[in-house]
């Protein structure tokens, strides 16, 4: 039963119909007028909450990272990556963030904007997000942003969020697999002056303006409540991300990806990129750990195990 049919069965469902909905093909003009009046009458009833929920605005922040499942080889002398052709993928935790947004959208109705900051090729992340069900995609891309540390990145993303304007909930992964800092979410919360909930493994809307969430912390779960708008960083336990549908993929191919530069978000290039970053990487070196032990072959497993047991006994470990 779709919502039009529900209305015919029971007028109490009239509030479900929004002006943006296409007119029902089998309902004539006068009946539509009747529905409109019903809508007006219901607007001051308890259903108002549901109407507001339908307008929930969610922003999901997603990052493109080198495939974390491919082990990068490093030149031990120079510290430079040997294999540069590592495939770029969506940061895994950001997919969990988008999934949570999609679940809220399905349950209550919401508009999802995805923002990614990165080089032009990061557009692929946004197309994937559209294929999965995001409504709007923005690529924040500018040479001036290259080399931004977490503070500069958070500042730029905050300005982009401000340009998007209205938002109720911002979702992102706890951290990205490349930088592994987990700092961008909390830093954005300071720039925007909104609450941050980190390490979130469970998220629920208590009402249209309040979320209840669980944080995975040392020794258990902290249960917290926050009024919106707020920013939430999620861990993998929160959900199982869906796969894109064929229809979604087709839609994503032709979807418009907006590209914003630092000028578009009103950011002085000196406040981002290398120049706008307080931290500096002064040296990179291969993390070589030396501990050359005895290596035995396993062609004769019995013999190898005997030698191992002898070794463990010598060291008093068994």
């Amino acid at each position, binding site marked *: 039963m779709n919502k039009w049919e529900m209305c015919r069965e029971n007028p109490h469902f009239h509030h479900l119909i929004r002006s943006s909905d296409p007119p029902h093909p089998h309902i004539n003009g006068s009946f539509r007028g009747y529905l409109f009046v019903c809508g007006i009458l219901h607007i001051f009833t308890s259903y108002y909450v549901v109407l507001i929920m339908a307008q929930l605005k969610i922003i999901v922040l997603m990052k493109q990272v080198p495939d974390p499942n491919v082990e990068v080889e490093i030149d031990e002398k120079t510290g430079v990556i040997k294999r540069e052709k590592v495939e770029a993928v969506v940061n895994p935790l950001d997919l969990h963030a988008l999934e949570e947004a999609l679940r809220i959208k399905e349950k209550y109705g919401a508009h999802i904007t995805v923002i990614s900051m990165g080089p032009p090729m990061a557009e692929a992340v946004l197309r994937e997000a559209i294929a999965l069900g995001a409504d709007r995609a923005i690529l924040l891309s500018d040479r001036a942003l290259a080399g931004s*540390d977490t503070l500069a990145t958070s500042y730029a993303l905050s300005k982009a969020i401000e340009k998007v304007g209205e938002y109720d909930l911002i979702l992102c992964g706890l951290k990205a697999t490349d930088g592994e800092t987990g700092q961008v979410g909390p830093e954005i919360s300071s720039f925007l002056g909104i609450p941050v909930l*980190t390490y979130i493994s469970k998220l629920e809307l208590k009402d249209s303006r309040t979320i209840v969430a669980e944080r995975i912390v040392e020794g258990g779960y902290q249960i917290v*409540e926050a009024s919106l708008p707020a920013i939430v960083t999620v861990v993998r336990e929160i959900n199982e991300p869906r796969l894109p549908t064929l229809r979604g993929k087709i839609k994503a191919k032709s979807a418009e990806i907006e590209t914003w530069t630092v000028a578009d978000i009103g950011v002085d290039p000196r406040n981002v990129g290398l120049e706008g970053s307080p931290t500096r990487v002064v040296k990179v*070196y*291969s993390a070589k750990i030396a501990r050359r032990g005895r*290596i035995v072959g396993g062609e004769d497993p019995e013999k190898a195990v005997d030698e191992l047991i002898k070794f463990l006994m010598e060291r008093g470990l068994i």
Partner: protein
Amino acid sequence: MSEHVGVLTVSEFRDGSLQPVSFELLNVGRKLADKLGAKLMTVLIGYKVKEHAMELIYRGADEVYVLDDKRFKDFIAETYANAIVHVIKNVKPEIVVASATTTGRTVMPKVAAMLRTGLTADCTSLDIDPEDKMLVQIRPAIGGNVMATIKTPRHRPQMATLRPKIYREAERDTSRSGKIIEVKPPEHIFETRVKVLGFRRDLSQEIDIEKADIVVAGGKGLKKKENFDLIFELAKVLGGAVGASRAAVDHGWIPYSHQIGLSGKTVSPRLYIAVGISGAIQHLAGMKTSETVVAINNDPDAPIFKVCDFGIVGDLFEILPILMEKLKRLKEGKA
């Protein structure tokens, strides 16, 4: 910039006691302060924490800033960040170090953004550059494949979170003396839209691989979830805990709480047995301080063999059953 002097650590208090990471921070903080010829300060935030301030002096602090208020009973990022910023603005330290716990990694980026300064996450080593006297922050980068040295040249304070369990806890010296300063938190500190509703203990998280004497860890080489039973069995025979590489966790063979490495836990047991783990630096970062490392892998070029004390190049599915059989027999023989 020059008006910023001294080293400040952020102590952690939970479940009615000072957390050991607080003493690890004082250990590294003392070293940094001594190299700078400056004082070591720490900030202690919580409810009914006052009586614990002296312990922080015994562990190396010269000054303890105490913010004791019922509204600090539970950790809320905003109120804690406001409190730390309040102290930093008043004492103007040159360096601020917190632990890379869930608390430190949440509150410190908020503090850094409020102060518009840099923050280096999850450092594995901190030192002072003898020439420019700047804080040298070392952390793994690019998924743990390389180590990066990071500095914060023009912004103060220089801030870092320090990975737990890397530095030892500072020795307790009851002959030490220092100042305890009670800070009355201004009301605006408590303005927040977040409420803590409760806490649910999770016992499965408390099977503490970080404290285990023996850790048996499995990786990609196990090929599928069912095979991980071999790791559990071997751990049982040896009386150890079970660990895993990121690959094994990513495949869903074992929960994240068992993950060892840069993005998981750090362990330093007496014996670490890596089974079917190639030894990406990401993983090594979490177990390199183990006393004895044993590796079993079929790839002779696996990096794990470069960091082990004893390695078997062979098929783990052949070796493990024999190993367990022999260990069991040995145990029975002893009993």
